């Protein structure tokens, strides 16, 4: 399942134009540098018709040998396909769409460049989003039987037997009484939370919570206080303060199972203990964890050994592990009835497509069979293997050992762009995540592990690739392109502490 994806990472790069010369420079700092300064920094003749990676490497080596390494060298991207075309060379083979960007996105456009890549950016953890196989066949069958959409909301005329079956199956899968499904994962939070919480409630929300949770809380008009990421002591302090204020009708802790940008797993046992001690309520968003964690693929409750009934509201999406779309809210029968009456999705949002319903049902059925559970085990093995290889390379990967999201830190924006560009050149599609989503100095590459047998090879071959990336041209101790830090060679830091993932990033200097 190779995807054609937009490369969104060159958005921040800029083109410096001078006559017929065109050098693409990435990064905010470099964007303001005029062409001459860049060329001077590279020490290539200003009349060079084509800037090649070897130019950069040669220039960098020269700079290193003179003891004055020039940071700006890192900012320059390799030659773009368009320039190759200009120089009369054939562009690389398909199938990934390149996008030529400038400083403002309003001038970004597709270059028509295509490249075939291994997709390590999509969240197809268990490989159920495959175009053939039992899931796809079941979905096709459901399409013929029920059509593509019901053109009505669930509360009106949009309910079909598949929806009921799916809700029952979801509840049984998670081990709770009832569930409610919605056609879009983002909307599940944004439309479900306002029905559940009112202005009298206080919400203690993790600082890394997803945008949909934040939007849902805003629409619910609750007071929100933010606690430090996965910091139980801070959470407890805020909760005790809030109880002492005597203003709140109830206090709800809103957390995610696996954080998509950090790759960390919530310390759920601690939160449940705190909940029981202080009388809090817990809303758990399992967007990334359901299906991907635990021996029975039942998400973070399964992984942490918490009874699902102890969590007040279980929310999750079908987009990732189940290879479909939409989301669910599950919990006690009373809660689900309340949500049907007061949540927004049941009355207003159109019903989930029957084909999507069937895909999820088929995936859930598959997860009850040994072969389905094998996928879960393979995912865990792949994740462990991938993390261990990354660690061996000496790069810093955040998150819990078992989390299928593996963010690799590259720190600066320009590093991120350069790494993604190089990986793409080697046929690996990954996502760089930069400033608005992360702190300014913690840009990262977000990998996602997958379990498909065909992916197994891809995952391992990929692990080998960063090694070959630091090939003969690059300075010897550089994993990918973190080369200009002058730190002594570090011992790889294990970030797998189960209960307290580190709050501070491991410093490189």
């Amino acid at each position: 399942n190779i995807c054609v994806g937009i490369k969104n990472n060159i958005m921040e790069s800029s083109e410096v134009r001078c006559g017929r010369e065109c050098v693409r420079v990435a990064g905010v700092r470099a964007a303001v540098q005029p062409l001459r300064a860049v060329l001077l920094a590279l020490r290539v003749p200003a009349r060079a018709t084509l800037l090649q990676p070897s130019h950069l490497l040669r220039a960098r080596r020269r700079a290193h040998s003179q003891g004055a390494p020039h940071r700006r060298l890192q900012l320059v991207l390799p030659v773009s396909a368009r320039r190759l075309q200009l120089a009369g060379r054939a562009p690389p083979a398909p199938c990934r769409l390149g996008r030529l960007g400038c400083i403002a996105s309003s001038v970004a456009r597709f270059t028509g460049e295509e490249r075939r890549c291994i997709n390590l950016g999509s969240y197809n953890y268990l490989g159920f989003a495959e175009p053939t196989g039992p899931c796809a066949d079941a979905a096709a069958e459901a399409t013929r039987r029920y059509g593509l959409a019901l053109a009505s909301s669930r509360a009106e005329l949009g309910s079909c037997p598949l929806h009921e079956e799916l809700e029952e199956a979801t509840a049984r899968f998670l081990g709770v009484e009832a569930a409610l499904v919605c056609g879009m994962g983002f909307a599940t939070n944004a439309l479900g939370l306002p029905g559940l919480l009112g202005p009298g409630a206080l919400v203690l929300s993790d600082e890394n919570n997803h945008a949909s949770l934040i939007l849902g809380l805003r629409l619910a008009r609750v007071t929100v206080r933010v606690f430090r990421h996965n910091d139980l002591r801070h959470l407890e302090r805020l909760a005790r303060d809030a109880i002492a204020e005597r203003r709140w009708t109830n206090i709800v802790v809103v957390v995610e199972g696996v954080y998509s940008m950090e790759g960390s797993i919530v310390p759920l046992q601690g939160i449940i203990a705190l909940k029981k001690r202080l009388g809090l309520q817990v809303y758990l968003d399992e967007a990334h964890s359901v299906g991907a964690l635990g021996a029975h693929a039942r998400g973070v409750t399964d992984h942490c050994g918490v009874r699902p009934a102890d969590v007040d509201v279980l929310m999750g999406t079908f987009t990732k592990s189940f290879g479909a779309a939409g989301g669910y809210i599950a919990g006690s029968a009373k809660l689900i009835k309340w949500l049907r009456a007061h949540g927004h999705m049941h009355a207003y949002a159109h019903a989930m497509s029957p084909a999507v319903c069937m895909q999820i049902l088929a995936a859930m059925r598959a997860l009850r069979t040994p072969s389905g559970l094998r996928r879960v085990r393979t995912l865990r093995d792949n994740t462990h293997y991938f993390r261990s290889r990354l660690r061996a390379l000496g790069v810093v990967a955040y998150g819990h050992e078992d989390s299928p999201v593996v963010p690799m830190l590259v720190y600066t924006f320009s590093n991120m762009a350069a790494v993604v560009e190089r990986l793409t050149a080697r046929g690996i599609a990954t996502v760089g995540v930069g400033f608005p989503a992360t702190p300014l100095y913690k840009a990262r590459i977000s990998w996602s592990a997958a379990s498909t047998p065909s992916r197994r090879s891809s995952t391992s071959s990929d692990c080998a690739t960063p090694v070959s990336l630091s090939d003969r041209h690059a300075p010897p101790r550089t994993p990918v392109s973190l080369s200009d830090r002058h730190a002594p060679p570090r011992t790889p830091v294990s970030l797998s502490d189960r209960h307290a993932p580190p709050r501070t990033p491991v410093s490189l200097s």
Partner: protein
Amino acid sequence: MILVDIYEMMSCWTFLIALQVVIVSTYFLWTRKSKKYKDPLMTDERIEWNPMPLVPYEVENEEPPLMGKIDENVLNVGATSFLCLDKEEVILENAINCLHKYGVGSCGPRGFYGTIDVHLELEERLAKFLEVEETCVYSYGFSTVASAIPAYSKKGDIIFADEAVWFAVQKGIEASRSTVRYFKHNDASDLERLLSEAAQKKELNPKRRAFLVVEAIYFNTGEMCPLKQVVELARRFKLRIILDESLTIGVLGKHGRGITEHLKIPRDEIDLIVGSLEHSFATIGGFCAGTHFIVEHQRLSGLGYCFSASLPPMLTQAAITALDILEQKPDMLKELDENSKKLNKALAELKHFTFRGNELSPVKHIYLKNTDKTDDSTKQSCLRKIANYCMEKGVAFAVAAYLRDVEVNCPEPSIRLASSRKLNDTNISMICNLLDEAYESVVPNNKLQSS
């Protein structure tokens, strides 16, 4: 001489002041260090803490009817598939082919390799169809307008909106945290009054963006927006228009391009057109259309676009095929218009109901007649009974579902009737007869009692 004097004086004062600074700062540092977190629950005071449960009391849901494929066993006049594209075999086949090419889910947001070539194709095709520069496709109809509004309007901006806008628009406005003024439904003079008041109070000023949010045909009333006057006002007071065309794309106009084509308003007068693929196109999703400059902004700041998985490719392909069909057979629109008009004529003769809805509107609302003293919940349950009765007789009606306590201006309980291409004269007369018959059998003595 003077200099020496000053110097002598200063030396003594300098020493004193320096001493003071040292003492004061030591004191501050000392107190700061000794300040520790005191647990408010560990004082002697007793604190009563009985948190309210998340769900305060048990509620009972009205069981919605279970439907098969649209129109399978009953005549479905509640589903908003106006053009009956859900029946087209071509669409289903193309969607299934696409399913066997890409699988069901897209497994990621648009920026995270969730963009499949069909998404780009649909965006391009929609832009060409609507004759705009660019469109962007969302993965859910509700989230489209609810994300589009807060993408532009922020805290400190001002929004003027019709009071009958549907729930997603209300949520979009709420999420934007802007100041909002609701004007009377379809009343351009009330809008003008509000606008001139705002202009007098200097609420409309160049430092603050002002938006106007209207629907082309209102989902909650079935009325059409007087867009010409509204556009004129918006230009006069320098407002930006966000127009929700969910019900009019594929319905109004010669080619189905919506209200702008129908009223012959140049499309660039409207800043942003928001549409849904869930009605006429009979699939899932929504889109925003406008100039490249405006639409591109959403790709980074539209929450529902940025942070949600993209539309499943098969549903995208279905929308593309629906566009193909719409472009090949624009006559479908005429049939739909005819039916809507016929429906208006027939509904006017109902004995126990009044109705509302423009004659071109594919959505009509049917209300109970002579029920001034009855409260809304009685009306709602009465309508529900009527719908159940009709369901048994083979016609499915949708009782409009509203969350009464959350809606800004909750409409009266009604049955939402969706006109469509498939209706013929016998269907229409049967629908009307059945409604009256149901009323007479459900409501004894033809009198509604307020409970």
